[in-house]
């Protein structure tokens, strides 16, 4: 029924009048044989700019989604119609189109759940399965306009579930449609789809919780033609998404009591007689569309003046977090400042920051112009969880949103690069060693957190690996986020902070609104730095080598150690007299314990205040530096400027000859107190 209405509707009426005034759709010239090859001459992708601070499109627009969706809050179900116009820019005829049906991942035998049970998952254990955790996405009807020789264009029967990654016949997250007629290069094709999506209780940052809903990955989405083939992976426990840029016009019909937020700009809102309302959104140069609704959001709005124009910031806060709205706004604007200054402009007119339902699995997610934070009603000022999450998710507007890498295959390029810029931005805003926590004398910095995340699973997997091929969710997180961030911080030490900053800027400006691969990023760094960095990338990006250098020993003894003293008294006297003249032979030994080879610097300090710096290429397993001086070595420190962030063990990077027991005494005091307190508490109640 919904499809009938859709077929009879003029697609251009989906967008508001304002949208049309902004930039009328243009029709690209079609190849002469377009109609013969299944394409229809009337279609086009709009070149609207309503949602961006630019007078012309910023991406090569491949898709135009027009969705009319009605959300049933009682059943957490969306019934919708979707008109997808696809522009074949692949350079070859396309005879089939794969579609993602992501919500089908939440079925007991789906690949997502199978993998999650083995490898772990971010927020669900899948130890048991309840009905409320099921999700589904069903294409009720699909038609290809202009290919009407099969029952009026209805190709629903032609749909075929495929599992290109693992062959799991029970996985229904990808469906393939074979076309009666191929779509010629340069031609357009329009799909008309009626679908129903049933959201699960929140899983993987999508679904409902209580009266809240986050509509993410909720509509049939066509794959990406990439590197000469369709790229449409199944939904895995450790993967995110990949899609083409285009234009989105989405009508959402929800109960009137709901407060709604979504990607893009809102162009219309009207109440319906049945106590629902329809909110219309438009998005330009984005590759996904997400929305949220809750009756309890409290809204804070402000305007940020970006390099390209004003951005409307909208914060949808939980009532119990209302006092944190200012914190959310502050970190958002400060992050925007840094990203615009360091990497490039934010071109969109809106940014919606959602503070999701507590205890839901919806926190910490990115969609174009729409992110979710994560907080709690109890959030001391020195605990920077909201700041950390909002900064990270905003960073994805650049590393995912605009530089739209393949999250299935190159997860490190969005999560990892974003974690690196997160380190840089949070260091700058909140302090290098205090950017996660600075409360009651306890501190923790983001860069150390990333390093710890990496070292927890340092030797499992390389960075350059498909996200679904990681050993476990812990390894995926540790390598994709933590190792990439640590590797790039270390790279900064190799090529220089300014050069790295310039490389990041060049990379963003060159590849925004495209789908770059790993070599595009790595070559950009090499080009900007003018250095061949293959020795580093081969180990750090493509390899799983682990780095652990140590100062293995420090020794100093008098060169005349063999001269015997007559007696102890004389020896002491002589030693006192000759104190300044004694010549010492000193040795400092360094050891490369693991297989990551990298040049390092070591700083050696003597007891006369002298400091020396030595270089070691690290190629041999160990090296020993020797000195003959009128001074003894007091300490040796590898990487004295703390440029290397990938050393697995930082504790053995330095050696101080004179032991300092005070740090241990301090820690032991805490541990002793805790032990005694537990003893007393136990005795209090038990006897």
């Amino acid at each position, binding site marked *: 029924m919904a499809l009938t209405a859709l077929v009879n509707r003029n697609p251009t009426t989906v967008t508001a009048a304002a949208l049309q005034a902004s930039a009328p759709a243009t029709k690209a010239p079609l190849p002469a044989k377009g109609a013969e090859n299944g394409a229809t001459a009337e279609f086009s992708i709009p070149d609207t700019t309503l949602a961006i601070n630019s007078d012309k499109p910023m991406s090569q627009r491949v898709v135009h989604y027009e969705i009319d969706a009605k959300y049933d809050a009682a059943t957490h179900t969306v019934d919708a119609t979707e008109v997808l116009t696809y522009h074949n820019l692949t350079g070859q005829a396309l005879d089939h189109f794969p579609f993602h049906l992501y919500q089908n991942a939440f079925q007991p035998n789906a690949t997502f759940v199978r993998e999650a049970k083995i490898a772990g998952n971010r927020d669900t254990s899948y130890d048991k399965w309840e009905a409320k955790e099921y999700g589904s996405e069903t294409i009720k009807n699909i038609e290809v306009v202009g290919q009407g020789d099969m029952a009026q264009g209805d190709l629903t029967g032609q749909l075929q579930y495929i599992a290109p990654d693992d062959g799991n016949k029970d996985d229904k997250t990808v469906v393939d449609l074979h076309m009666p007629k191929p779509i010629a290069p340069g031609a357009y094709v329009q799909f008309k789809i009626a679908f129903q999506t049933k959201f699960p209780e929140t899983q993987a940052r999508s679904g409902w919780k*209580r009266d809240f809903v986050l509509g993410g990955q909720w509509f049939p989405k066509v794959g990406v033609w990439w590197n000469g083939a369709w790229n449409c992976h199944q939904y895995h426990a450790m993967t995110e998404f990949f899609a083409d840029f285009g234009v989105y016009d989405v009508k959402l019909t929800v109960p009137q009591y709901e407060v709604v937020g979504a990607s893009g700009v809102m162009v219309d809102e009207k109440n319906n007689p049945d106590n629902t309302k329809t909110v219309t959104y438009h998005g330009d140069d984005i590759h996904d569309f997400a929305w949220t609704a809750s009756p309890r959001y409290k809204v804070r709005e402000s305007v940020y003046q970006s390099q390209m124009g004003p951005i409307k910031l909208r914060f949808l806060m*939980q*009532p*119990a977090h209302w006092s944190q709205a200012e914190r959310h706004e502050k970190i958002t604007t400060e992050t925007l400042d840094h990203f615009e200054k360091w990497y490039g402009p934010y071109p969109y007119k809106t940014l919606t920051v959602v503070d999701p339902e*507590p*205890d839901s699995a919806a926190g910490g997610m990115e969609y174009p112009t729409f992110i979710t934070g994560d907080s*709690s*009603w*109890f959030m001391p000022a020195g605990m920077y969880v909201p700041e950390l999450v909002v900064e990270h998710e905003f960073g994805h507007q650049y590393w995912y949103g605009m530089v739209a890498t393949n999250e299935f295959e190159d997860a490190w390029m969005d999560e990892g690069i974003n974690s690196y810029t997160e380190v840089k931005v949070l260091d700058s805003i909140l302090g290098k*060693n205090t950017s996660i*926590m600075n409360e*009651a*004398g*306890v*501190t*923790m*910095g983001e860069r*150390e*957190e990333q*390093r*710890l995340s990496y*070292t*927890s699973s340092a030797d499992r997997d390389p960075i350059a690996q498909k996200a679904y091929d990681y050993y476990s969710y812990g390894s995926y997180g540790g390598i994709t986020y933590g190792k990439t961030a640590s590797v790039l911080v270390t790279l900064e030490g190799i090529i220089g902070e300014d050069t790295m900053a310039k490389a990041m800027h060049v990379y963003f400006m060159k590849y925004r609104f495209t789908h770059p691969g790993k070599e595009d990023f790595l070559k950009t760094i090499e080009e900007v730095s003018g250095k061949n960095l293959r020795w580093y990338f081969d180990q750090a990006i493509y390899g799983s080598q682990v780095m652990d250098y140590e100062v293995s020993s420090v020794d100093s003894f008098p060169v005349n150690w063999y001269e015997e003293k007559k007696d102890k008294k004389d020896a002491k006297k002589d030693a006192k007299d000759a104190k300044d003249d004694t010549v010492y032979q000193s040795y400092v030994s360094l050891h490369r314990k693991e297989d990551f080879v990298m040049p390092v610097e070591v700083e050696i300090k003597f007891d006369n205040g002298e400091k020396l710096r030595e270089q070691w290429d690290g190629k041999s397993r160990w090296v020993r530096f020797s000195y003959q001086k009128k001074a003894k070595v007091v*300490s040796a*420190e590898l990487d004295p400027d703390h440029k290397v962030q990938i050393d697995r*063990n*930082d*504790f*053995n*990077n*330095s*050696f*101080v*000859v004179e*032991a*300092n*027991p*005070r*740090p*241990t*005494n*301090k*820690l*032991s*005091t805490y*541990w*002793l*107190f805790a*032990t*005694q*307190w*537990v*003893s*007393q508490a*136990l*005795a*209090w*109640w*038990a*006897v």
Partner: protein
Amino acid sequence: MSEKKGLLSSGWGMAIHNKRYIFWFWLLNLTLAEFGTAAFRQSAHAILDHSMLADRLLHGFDLAVMIGLFARPEFGSMAAMSTVAGYFAFLFLLFTALFLPGVFQGYASTYRLPREDFFRACGRNLWRFIRLMIVAGIVMGIFAVVLFGISGALVKKAGESTNEVLPFEVHMAGLAVIFLVMTVLRIWFDLAEADIVLNDQRAVRKSIGAGFRHTFRAFWRLLTSYVVTTVFAAVILVGGLWIWMRLVGPEHWFDAFIVSQIILILLLIPRFWQRGIAVSYWQQNMVVPVVTYPSPFLDPKPVVAVVAAPPSPAPEAV
């Protein structure tokens, strides 16, 4: 009201007049904990003493460095170290059970209890206390499981609410109720302990029965006294930690040691205060009446006698 004050003040008096017990228990706990934390100390010394990175633990407290330390394989397993510490905590519990009869005896005495009498009371009541501990463990364990179960279910139910703070509030309310119930049970078994020692009661079940009856006979008086002492303990803990954080510099580990031990020794006071309250209550209300032979020529009213042990000829104090 005056009776309540009487219990609190007399209990306080017993605890303070016999403060040497508090000192010895603190020393015992410290000694056992030193053993319990030795492995931790040894591992930390091996990694930190010659490393410059350790400075970040000394000057301030960098959580990342501490997590990194615990993650080092050569440091050893924190779970294993916690288990060892737990064993010594359990040992402290056993020693407490061993020496507590002497404390009760000392509290009931109107003089400084000689060492021999202290240990005699400990030895005479050891197995009685172990039996009592087992009964108390079963009873308190059952209550704890049931109450925590109910509390957990209520918290889960509250989690369905759209009021985010409600689960926390329910959790806190649940803990308050559990605390009160467990305090009542503690009163019951404290009275039983006092009765076992001071009445020289071999039949533990009789003391348990007496403790139970008297707990509810003077319910509010005893409960209020125990709650007041517990609040006192909470104030000590919170105030002590606040002073520690505010006044002790991050690199002054020895000052931290002193402050932490003062907190711990002060935290022992309220529990000994509670035991003083139990002894005081026993003396006032639970003492066994001793009936003398009736004489037709004398007043036939029964005479109440204090059943505490007589003074020793060799008053060498503990």
